[in-house]
């Protein structure tokens, strides 16, 4: 429980309106986009790095955990305060501080919504490349903490490839900078370690990101195939032909049905799977490559392939893809989204294993994913009200991840480890690997006060200064 003098001190820093501590109000801070839930003890909405620094120092005095939160769209329970504490919500820090058009840089606060940045710089002919499907709501701070990707990361890379520098508040309340707007910094690349640290190494308070010029031409193809196997094969063929589309996304039959039910964007109902293949670049490049894509798909007996004729058509195609998860939500009260990665050539095999798992547990599993990077998102549909469901679903999730690891893949493509997947870390890391990771984290946050209980297997405290080799034995 928090005591009233803590509340008083917090209110002094951010003002009465920006501290919440009544249990009824706090109910809406117990979830994120995942299935995990836990209540914070108090929620604070800071406005500046200095606010955050003071709050962290107070937390130290009162021995409270700090859990950073952006928009709460995370899919691995990252922003859920599993062990209570102070939830630090960064949505008020949402200013785009400056744009350097010549050097194509933006200095932003962490609460800026991903898509808002791209919209803001569009008139300058620029865009911010990482585009998670949640980009209409998720924040740049959350993106950094999760090292988020998105459909277009096939060509452009993930968040870490676009962040140049970060001001952070550390566990003891210091305000420091990592990285620099120059691409090469003397000394260790601490920024590289910080990106993807899921709120456990520090709180990102200012961020310098790299912007890219909007490509001259964009072509979005919708290719439909009778089976998911054929579609997977098409993905491999496109990539091995040497083309680098900006995105290749796949949706299976169940997903197509769900999307058409809610979003209605013109996916064919006869297809077993559809691919969205997008190309961008100069006009000549794109029309030449588009021909190649058409040829490849046609030679693989696709049912149909078409190109979006207008911006509206293109947006409609993407609206379907970006709304796919939510649309699946319309089929069942809950979904559990698994985020695994496999080598592209292993797609058909892994998808077969997934469909076997689906039969075994007698729950539908939909597949909608970044096929170009082999980043699978099997989505298990269920109803949490039914008894025993949670264990069943978690078990199946584990089996799917195991299947990914078995074919040489890995645990998470982009949604982070968070709370949900921490126990799976043993599947891909040795004790010594985890130890090393933990030592890096501990050098930033030795007391485990920041976002405890995430990423590393075990409870909140057992790994504080821990040693995985001893911890596990």
């Amino acid at each position, binding site marked *: 429980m928090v005591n009233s003098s803590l509340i008083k001190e917090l209110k002094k820093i951010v003002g009465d309106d920006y501290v*919440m501590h*009544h*249990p*009824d*109000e706090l*109910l*809406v*801070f117990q*979830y*994120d*986009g995942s299935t995990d839930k836990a*209540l914070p003890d108090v929620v604070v*909405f800071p406005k500046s790095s200095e606010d955050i620094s003071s709050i962290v120092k107070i937390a130290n005095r009162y021995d409270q955990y700090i859990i950073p939160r952006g*928009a*709460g*769209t995370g899919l691995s329970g990252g922003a859920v305060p599993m062990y209570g504490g102070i939830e630090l*919500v960064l*949505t*008020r820090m*949402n200013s785009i501080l400056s744009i350097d058009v010549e050097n194509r840089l933006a200095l932003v606060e962490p*609460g800026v*919504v991903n*898509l*808002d940045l791209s919209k803001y710089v569009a008139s300058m002919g620029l865009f911010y490349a990482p585009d998670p499907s*949640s980009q*209409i*709501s*998720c924040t740049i701070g959350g993106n950094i903490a999760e090292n988020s990707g998105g459909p277009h990361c096939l060509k452009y890379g993930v968040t870490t490839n676009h962040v140049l520098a970060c001001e952070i508040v550390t566990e003891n309340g210091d305000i420091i900078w990592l990285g620099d707007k120059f691409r090469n910094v003397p000394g260790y690349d601490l920024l590289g370690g910080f990106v993807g640290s899921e709120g456990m190494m520090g709180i990102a308070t200012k961020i310098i990101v790299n912007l890219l010029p909007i490509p001259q031409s964009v072509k979005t193809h919708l290719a439909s195939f009778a089976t998911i196997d054929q579609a997977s094969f098409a993905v491999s063929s496109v990539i091995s032909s040497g083309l680098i589309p900006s995105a290749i996304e796949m949706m299976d039959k169940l997903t197509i049905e769900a999307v058409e*039910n*809610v*979003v209605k964007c013109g996916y064919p109902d006869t297809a077993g799977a559809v691919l969205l293949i997008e190309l961008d670049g100069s006009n000549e490049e794109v029309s030449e490559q588009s021909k190649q894509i058409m040829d490849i798909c046609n030679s693989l007996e696709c049912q149909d392939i078409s190109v979006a004729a207008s911006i509206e058509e293109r947006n409609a195609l993407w609206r379907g893809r*970006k*709304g*796919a*998860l*939510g*649309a699946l*939500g*319309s089929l069942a*009260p*809950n*979904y559990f989204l698994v985020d695994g990665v496999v080598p592209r050539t292993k797609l058909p095999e892994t998808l077969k294993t997934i469909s076997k798992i689906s039969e075994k547990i007698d729950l539908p599993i939909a597949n909608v994913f970044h096929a170009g990077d082999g980043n699978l998102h099997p989505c298990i549909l269920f109803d949490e009200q039914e008894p025993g469901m949670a264990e069943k679903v978690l078990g199946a999730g584990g089996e799917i991840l195991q299947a990914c690891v078995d074919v040489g893949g890995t645990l998470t493509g982009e949604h982070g480890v968070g709370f949900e997947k921490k126990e799976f870390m043993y599947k891909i890391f040795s004790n010594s690997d985890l130890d090393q990771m933990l030592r890096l984290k501990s050098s930033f946050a030795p007391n485990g006060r920041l976002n405890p209980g995430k990423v590393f297997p075990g409870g909140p405290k057992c790994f504080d200064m821990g040693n995985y080799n001893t911890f596990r034995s």
Partner: protein
Amino acid sequence: MGIEIKPENTIFTSTQMDIQDLYKCVHCGLCLSSCPTYTVLGKETDSPRGRIAYMKAIYEEKTYLTPRIVSHLDSCLQCRACESVCPSGVPFGRLMEHTKSYIVNKKKYSFFRSVVNKFLYKVVFPKQFILSLLSIGIKVYKALKLNKIRILMPGFMIPLDKMISDTPKEVFRADGSIFYSNPIVKKRSVALLSGCVMPIVQSDTMRATVRVLNKNGCDVFVPESQKCCGALNIHGGDLEGAKSLAKANIDAFIDLDIEAIIVVSGGCGAIMKEYFDLFKNDEEYLEKAIRFSNKVKDISEFLIQISIIKPENNLDYTVTYQDSCHLSNVQKITSPPRQLLEQIEGITIVEMEDNKCCGAAGVYSLFHKEMSSVLASSKMDSVESTRANVVISGNPGCMIQINGEASKRKSPIKVMHLVDILDEAYSYAN
């Protein structure tokens, strides 16, 4: 967690909310940034996802309607922007209507608010004569030339004064008149919803509507027994009051031999297209309501459907179009008004960057002054950045709100209804 469960915490049974609707929400958060209150406050408590979480928590008896929860639920504008981006198809509007009704049933509004609610929903909107009194009040106000002392007025009075000063002399009466069209053009018959506030405050627009429809070959009938559409009752949680208004309107229009029921207010049209939601347990009216709703057409969609005669006049305006929430988010009508504007020679259309709710939201501005005025001000910023000299809208609430904000800023910008500008584009040739 320390929340005490109170006996009053029964489920939403009194309102017949469809509980399945609640569980369609998968808390993905994609709706957050479309929500005006979340955008302004940055707080989950005042977001669509948060409000749904509160509803669920109440239904699951994890909490009850505490004053804090009531205030977060009540700060919702019911603009339904969240509904139109939600990939799960959560019918947020419907959920919120039931929730408001639950708040009213549980008597969770303050005494003052309850009295005002009762007065508005039971007396003012349903009874046209009260509105007539209002119109007399307006005349007296004008006769006393109170508007000449605007400099002495407190800031919040200015928008009201502006509205009163702009009110035309003559009201538009739903008195069963039929306005016949030009006999040369092919004939159609339509009926017109006159509404409750528009025939007083924007009676000129009602007359313009008749002229524009006549011009395009439509005879216009204005049934006398029609009533206020009931939208404000529904939004305020008075579902029973709304039902009786809906019935009266269904009865007034259902047997007419007409092609369409024309509505010039986005908010009214939206609710009339959803009347059937009110009659889930009333088979007789359910069937009638569906037939009725199918005939309801916003003026813009109707005019596009019948394809209008090209307006003769050249109008040298730069306009920007304000999407009324209930026209765009509920009726999904965004392109017909723009297509109509494009048919007027000389007009340049500049789009606003941000198309969020202007904060009018029915009677919202009465109870949530601060949020309403923040939204009005940000709307006006977007309007001004287009450098347009005319703002067009298809909803009286938006027009009054933007007009009020413009007069606060002493902005010369003109606010017009879509039919007003069409009428102007036609009239000189008549």
